[in-house]
């Protein structure tokens, strides 16, 4: 027979002021299995805990009910208390008589007292059927996977590597660097973006703890925290990167020319290429779609005749060109995964009023970055894409694909106000005759030195800010006529511009949702990944061992991305500092005798925590992975067979609670 102790906390007057604690104690005395009752002013205080501890020992109690605040507050505190008195910590039941009772029934003390008695009665009924539970320990692989080689991923990889853990950094482009590599200067300090990024990229390449896999993608992910099994697709580069020295002969001698993705198709690159001069690794890949050799091979197969070319193979001093190279699957085990897949810019072709991309001289902010950059397609000279003339009047349009519910983008992209101010300053620096106009809705310059910077763009560099949206842009001769409204003076405005820059917003990189599905992490309606808690767990996901960093979560600027990369790395390092992982025993179980193997639970489980196993009599049934299970109970609710159950909340225990109320 169980010997239950019931302890009621007054919580000062929080509970005691509304609930008549002495009546609750009196009622509890006659409840089944109750051997001892007591009250505390504050059960969670040190004297309160000590009195519970002593009462357990003196009265040989083996189960404890504490009537107090929500278990969210102090369940763990009291588990430790009962454990020190020698009771299994899971033989404790919290009866929430504060949030569920005294706080909501302050106007009716009698009813609140009655309800408290019933709540305690239910807890007493449940505690008698509780069973001791024990944690299990599992090992972990102390190697991290970072997905995405932008600044957030680079920072995360470096920080984990510096904590002396192995890291594999996967990037789907031929070089790491991400969007930051495409930027010219950074606000508000006007540091050269590539100059501050390049040393970090080189550090990644040289770090003994980092394995860099560029031109590679994560294909599928299995397993759980500490024990992920990941297949990575290494796309065929057609170049042996072990032999290649990056001498540059091949990409200098290649005869093919095709639009450069890195320069947003404003410049050309060769078919065997590195995306930009500071690329890491500084070793090329062959774009088989545009390479003359592969075009020749394809034509030969179709029976057509095209001239062959293998100039890169002939000239390579180390014979690194390998036309036969195939895609490869690399399987690795990881203990933790950081997702830092970043953003792409909004496709403005849905904006008919801005020309849907018809006008060559209506460009995006990222295009202007490439034009401003000394390593860009024009060598840093800002010219009109249509005719190469120098623009003198430049109009910026803010919130293109941001704060526009009609285009399905309700959120603010956060960086555009600042990059417009920066670009206006840079244009004026390049050519003092340039006049910039910025059509804005609000100037959002919340950040260290941001407001001062935006003000400088106006006051020192003479940028004219006009508050209002643009209604139409159309071509008239060589000019682009921008029609808008200055809503501050309430008058329509027309500006004849040489160049129009659309401040396109941020959206998640292509494939973000598919990656989230592979990782079983959640994403919102805009396909941004969802953090475990927006404030208190900003770089965690709801899946243990998978962390987030940078603008894959939402619009971020560079310092925030770097901070998040570091934060995620710190979480990984803390995880890896343990030699074993302790699992929470309050998880689902599946009775192998009752399970009929419909496997509905494997489909409803949000944590991918249910595997299958084959029984000795050949039945395929469900099996809970206790490390991944969070004890949400969805499998229990979906199981028609009654095979799934939740430890600490078993069907018997809940029925005991419910039936205790029938009197």
């Amino acid at each position, binding site marked *: 027979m169980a010997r239950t102790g019931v302890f009621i906390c007054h919580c000062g007057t929080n509970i005691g002021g509304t609930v008549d604690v002495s009546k609750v104690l009196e009622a509890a005395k006659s409840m089944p299995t109750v051997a001892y009752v007591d009250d505390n002013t504050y059960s969670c205080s040190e004297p309160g805990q000590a009195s519970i501890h002593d009462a357990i020992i003196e009265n040989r109690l083996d189960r404890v009910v504490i009537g107090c605040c929500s278990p969210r507050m102090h369940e763990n505190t009291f588990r430790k208390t009962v454990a020190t008195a020698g009771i299994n910590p899971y033989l404790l039941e919290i009866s929430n008589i504060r949030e569920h009772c005294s706080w909501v029934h302050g106007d009716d003390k009698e009813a609140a007292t009655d309800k408290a008695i019933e709540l305690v009665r239910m807890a007493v009924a449940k505690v008698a059927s509780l069973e001791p539970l024990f944690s299990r320990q599992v090992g972990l692989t102390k190697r991290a996977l970072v997905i995405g080689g932008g600044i957030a991923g680079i920072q995360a990889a470096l920080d984990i590597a510096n904590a002396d853990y192995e890291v594999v950094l996967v990037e789907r482009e031929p070089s790491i660097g991400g969007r930051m590599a495409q930027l010219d200067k950074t606000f508000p300090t006007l540091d050269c973006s590539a100059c501050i990024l390049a040393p970090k990229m080189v550090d990644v390449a040289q770090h003994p703890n980092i394995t860099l896999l560029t031109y590679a993608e994560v294909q599928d992910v299995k397993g759980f925290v500490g024990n992920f099994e990941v297949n990575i697709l290494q796309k065929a580069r057609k170049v042996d990167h072990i032999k290649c020295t990056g001498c540059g002969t091949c990409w200098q001698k290649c005869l093919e020319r095709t639009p450069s993705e890195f320069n947003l198709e404003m410049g050309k690159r060769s078919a065997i290429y590195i995306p930009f001069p500071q690329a890491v690794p500084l070793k090329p890949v062959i774009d088989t779609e545009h390479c003359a050799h592969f075009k020749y091979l394809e034509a030969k197969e179709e029976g057509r005749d095209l001239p062959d070319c293998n100039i890169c193979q002939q000239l390579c001093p180390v014979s690194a060109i390998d036309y036969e190279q195939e895609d490869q699957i690399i399987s690795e085990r990881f203990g933790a995964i950081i997702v830092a897949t970043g953003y792409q810019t909004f496709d403005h072709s849905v904006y008919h009023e801005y020309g849907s991309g018809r006008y060559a001289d209506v460009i995006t902010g990222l295009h202007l970055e490439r034009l401003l950059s000394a390593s860009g397609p024009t060598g840093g000279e800002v010219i009109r894409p249509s005719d190469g003339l120098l623009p003198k009047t430049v109009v910026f349009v803010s919130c293109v694909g941001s704060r526009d519910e009609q285009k399905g983008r309700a959120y603010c992209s956060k960086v555009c106000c600042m990059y417009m101010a920066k670009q206006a300053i840079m244009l004026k620096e390049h050519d003092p005759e340039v006049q910039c106009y910025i059509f804005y809705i609000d100037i959002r310059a919340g950040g260290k030195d941001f407001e001062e910077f935006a003000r400088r763009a106006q006051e020192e560099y003479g940028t004219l800010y006009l508050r209002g949206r643009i209604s139409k842009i159309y071509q008239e001769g060589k000019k682009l006529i921008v029609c808008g409204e200055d809503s501050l003076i309430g008058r329509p405005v027309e500006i004849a511009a040489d160049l129009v820059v659309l401040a396109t917003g941020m959206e998640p990189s292509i494939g973000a949702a598919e990656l989230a599905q592979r990782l079983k992490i959640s994403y919102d309606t805009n396909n941004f990944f969802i953090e475990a808690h927006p404030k208190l767990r900003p770089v965690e996901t709801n899946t243990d061992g998978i962390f987030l960093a940078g603008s894959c979560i939402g619009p971020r600027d560079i310092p925030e991305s770097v901070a998040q990369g570091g934060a995620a790395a710190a979480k990984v390092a803390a995880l890896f500092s343990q030699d074993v992982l302790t699992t929470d025993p309050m998880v689902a179980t599946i009775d192998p*005798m009752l399970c*009929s*193997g419909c496997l*509905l639970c494997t*489909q*409803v489980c949000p944590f991918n925590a249910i595997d299958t196993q084959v029984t000795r009599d050949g039945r395929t049934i469900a099996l809970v992975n206790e490390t991944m299970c969070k004890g949400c109970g969805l499998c229990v609710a979906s199981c028609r067979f009654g095979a799934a159950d939740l430890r600490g909340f078993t069907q*018997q225990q809940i029925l005991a609670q419910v039936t205790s109320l029938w009197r």
Partner: protein
Amino acid sequence: MDLGEQIRNKAKELIEIETVDCVIGYERATDGVGARPLFAYKPEEVDRLIFDQTCTHNLAKYLLNRKDKATAIVVKPCDSRAINLLLNESQIQRDKLFIIGVACPGITKTGLNNTSEELQAACQICQQHTPVIYDFLVGEPPASEPDIAEAYADVAAMEGQSAEERRAFWEEQFSRCIRCYACRQVCPGCYCTECFVERLDPLWVGIRIAPEENEVWNTIRAFHLAGRCIACNECERVCPVNIPLSLLNRKLEEEVRELFNFQAGMDAETPAPFATYKKEEVFPEIG
């Protein structure tokens, strides 16, 4: 060539070349009028196979006992949906199955020592005359399809009643239940290793045969079949006290179709509504 002969020829071929070791079909019952299930293992047993408008049983249920044995089975359209259901719920394996589908003109009320030309209730409103899954098809579907609104006229009438009227109606129906569980035994969707009604700990349903316990049994069974019932109506046919179970089942079928645009067993791949969440699913106010 009549349907029976086509089935016999195919079955013989399957047994002789050992594609399967058993053909589940129908043979003439001992009353000389009705049909009963036949398990044919040998070529000479195959000769007893028939098919006509008396072949009422949903044979898919028997596949649950032959999960990993190569089996051929004769299915009507409604039975074929049961096969999809069982495939979807990982109960049977497609590569172990050879499905002889029969385009069905409807089954008559012919039963033990009783010949009738009238179609069974479920067949009068049947929407599916060609099997949804088969390897070999015999027969021609009838030309005309009945009106869907007509199929749910009795459900609509029930919905038109007040909550009190409905309660009184079902209380009366369930009070007659003798808990023989024939409905469960005949249902291809009822395959729990231990039925909730037989669990002792926790004891979900009291053991005595009393109206309130019967009500628990019938309601939970209906909910377990929500979005899973494939409308063969065998439960209602075998009920010895004539509880209108199809009314309950079709009410739930209609709800699932309207809320989730889902019909059980139409294919083997679409995940059950329970397993998916779609943003466009909107739940009505519960009135």
